[in-house]
C-alpha cells in the first residue's frame, strides 16, 4: 500500500504540539499533524451558564473559526461535536453554573481537521487547568477502495478514500498511572468517546478502523502527555 508521501499505512504524520502560546488566554495550545495546524484557546470558567444549558453542571462553549470564509453548517457541526466530546471528558460537577469557552482557530487544513482540533482543545484545556477526568486522543482512519485502513490521511488521501472515520478514545491510563500496567490493561481505554464517519463502508471495515485507531492511541497519548508534563512540573517547582 503506497501513500503519496511515502508513509506506511499505520504511520502518522509528524506531530507537533506547543502550549501557552497566547498569554492573554487562560490556556492555549497549537497542534499540528503534518501540514494540518490548529490553534486552540481556552477562557474560563466564566460565571453563568448559557440558555438551555444545565446550570447544575459546568458547560463548555466551542467557537470554531475557519481559516477563510464564513462559519457554515460544517463548522456548526464541528462545534457541536467538539462541545459534546469535551463535556464528556471534563469533570463538570466541580464548577456548576459556569461556562468555559474554547476557541479553535484553523491555521491550515490538510486533512484530519476535527481530530486535530480535539487534540488541540484537549491540550489547551490542560494548559488552562480545567479539571478533566482523562485526556481524549483523536485519530482519523480512512478506508481505501481496496478496503485497506490507513491512518491520519492528508486532504488528498481523504478525498480519494471510500470512507473515513474520526474516532476519539480516552487516553490509555497506562501513560498516566504506570502501576495499572501490572494489573492488566484498563478497560476504559477500549471504549470510544466520539465517532463520526463519512462515506459508505462495511461494518467489518469500521471495526477494523476501531482496532487500528485504538492501537495508535497509546502513541498519541504518550506524545500528548510528554508535551503537557514540562509545564506542570515547572509550575510545581516554582510553587515549591
Amino acid at each position, binding site marked *: 500500500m503506497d501513500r503519496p508521501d511515502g508513509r506506511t499505512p499505520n504511520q502518522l504524520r509528524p506531530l507537533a504540539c506547543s502550549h501557552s502560546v497566547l498569554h492573554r488566554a487562560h490556556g492555549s495550545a497549537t497542534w499540528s499533524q503534518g501540514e494540518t495546524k490548529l490553534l486552540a484557546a481556552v477562557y474560563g470558567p466564566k460565571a453563568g451558564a448559557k440558555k438551555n444549558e444545565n446550570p447544575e453542571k459546568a458547560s463548555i462553549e466551542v467557537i470554531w473559526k475557519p481559516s477563510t470564509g464564513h462559519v457554515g453548517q460544517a463548522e456548526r457541526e464541528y462545534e457541536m461535536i467538539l462541545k459534546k466530546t469535551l463535556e464528556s471528558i471534563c469533570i463538570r460537577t466541580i464548577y456548576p453554573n459556569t461556562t468555559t469557552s474554547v476557541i479553535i482557530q484553523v491555521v491550515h487544513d490538510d486533512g484530519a481537521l476535527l481530530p486535530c482540533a480535539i487534540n488541540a482543545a484537549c491540550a489547551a484545556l490542560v494548559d488552562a487547568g480545567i479539571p478533566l477526568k482523562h485526556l481524549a486522543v483523536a485519530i482519523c482512519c480512512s478506508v481505501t477502495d481496496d478496503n485497506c485502513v490507513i491512518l491520519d490521511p492528508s486532504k488528498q488521501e481523504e478525498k480519494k478514500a471510500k470512507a473515513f472515520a474520526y474516532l476519539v478514545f480516552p487516553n490509555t491510563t497506562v501513560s498516566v498511572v504506570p502501576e495499572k500496567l501490572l494489573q492488566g490493561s484498563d478497560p476504559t481505554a477500549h*471504549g470510544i468517546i466520539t465517532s463520526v464517519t463519512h462515506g*459508505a*463502508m462495511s461494518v467489518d471495515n469500521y471495526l477494523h478502523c476501531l482496532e487500528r485507531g485504538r492501537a495508535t492511541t497509546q502513541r498519541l497519548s504518550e506524545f500528548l502527555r510528554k508535551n503537557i508534563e514540562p509545564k506542570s512540573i515547572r509550575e510545581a517547582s516554582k510553587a515549591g
Partner: protein
Amino acid sequence: MKKKNSKQSKQATQPKQSSEASQSKQSIQSEFSLLSIIISEYASLQCCIPPWRGICKIRRDDDCYDFAAYACTNQLEGEMFVEYDVTDIEVLIRSPSRLTKPEPAINQHKNKIKSHSSKNLTKTTEPRRRSESRHRKTLSSLKRMSLPNATEDLSSEMEVDAFRRLFPLRYFERHLAESIRPDGRPLKEARETSIFLGAVASANGSALVKIGSTTMLTAIKMEVMTPSLESPDEGCLAIDFHMPSICSPIVRPGRPAEAEPVLSKQLSDTISSSGMIDLKELSLVGGKAAWMAYLDIYCLDADGALFDAALLSAVASLSHLQIPAVAMNDDGKIVLMSEEDGQKQTTEQVNKEKRKLTLKSIPLSLTCILHKNYILADPTAEEESIIETHVTIVLDTSGQLISLYKPGGPVLAFTSAIQDCVALTRQRVKELKSFLDQANSAMEVE
C-alpha cells in the same frame, strides 16, 4: 366546595338513570369540562342497596381537591370510572373515615378509579380527545389529594409524578431495572412508525413521517438551474432542516435552534455518502440546464430521534418525487410542459417525460441511547434529556455502514455495544424498508 357537594347530591337524587344521563350530557357539552367522573357507589356493601350515580366534573386542579373532599365526606366506596380515551390508569382513593373502621376485606376500604376506554361510557358523555399531559396532571392531582391519609404502598404510588420530576435519572433507572421504559416499551423496541406520501399537493414530492409523536414533514421542489462549471452534467440536491418554534418548548421563536444546521449537514452528508441518488440523473442538457432539488424538512413535533425521522421523511419524499416533464423552446429555454402541451407541440424537442428517480440503496437509521450496560432504541425527548450518550447508526438496504455517529457522551461505546447497536439497526432498517415499500405500493394503487 360546598357548592360542588350540593350539586353532587342534587344529581344523586335523580331517580331515573336515563334522564340523568341526558342531563349530564347537556351540561357537559355546554361547558368545557376537562374530565368527568362517574361514580357508581354502593352506599353500603353489607346491605346491597342498588347503586346511585353521581357525576363530578373536574375542570381545574382545585376541582380535584373538592372531589376528594366530597369523596371523603361521603365515605365513598366501590368503583369510580374516569371517562377518558386511555386505558390502564388506575387511581385509588381511600376514604379516611372508612380506613379507621375495622372491616374484614381490604377491598371494601378502597375507592377505585379505573380509567376505561370511552366506549364503555358512551351512554353518558361523548368521547372527547384531550391532551394527555393535562390528563396526567389532573389524575396526579387526584392522586395527591388523598396522599396525607394514604398508607405506605399507596404513598409510593402517589408520589410517582413528583419522583419523576425531581429525580428523573433514578425514576428512569427504576424502570430499566424492570426492563421496561417509562412509556411502556421494551428497551429495544422502536415506537410506532407511519409514513404518508404526498402530503403536500403543490410539491413535486412530499412525505409526512411519524415515529411515535416525532413528526416530520418533507417537501421537494424542483427548479431548473445552470449547472456549475466543475460538474456540468450533474444536478444538485439542497437539504435544509427546519425547526420552527412549535416543535419543542426548547426552541424559541425568532432564534434558530442549534440543532438545525447540524442536522442539515448530517442529513446531506448521509444522503451523499450513501450514493442513493445519482446526481447525473438530474441533468437536463449537459452544461446548460440541470435540476436543482430543494428538499426541506420541517419538524412539527420534536419528541426525540429527530435524525431518524428526518432521514426517513427525506428518503420517503425522494421515493415519492416525480420529476416534472419539461421541454426546450425555440430560444433554448427550458419550460414546464403541461399535459395538453405534450401532444400539441410535438415539433418541440421534448427533454424529459414525467418520471421517478431511481434510488439505489436506501439509507435508514436508528438512534440508540447508552446508559451503563443498557441499550435503548429510539429514545423520546424525555429520555434524550436524561441520558446524554446517543449513538446514531445509518445502514443502507444492502447492509453497508453509512454513518456511525456518536458525539461524545459520558458512556464509552465498547465494541460489543457497537455490534449490538448495529444488529438493532439492521432489524430496524428492514422494518422501515417494508413500511416504505407499503407506502409506495399504496400510492401506486391510487
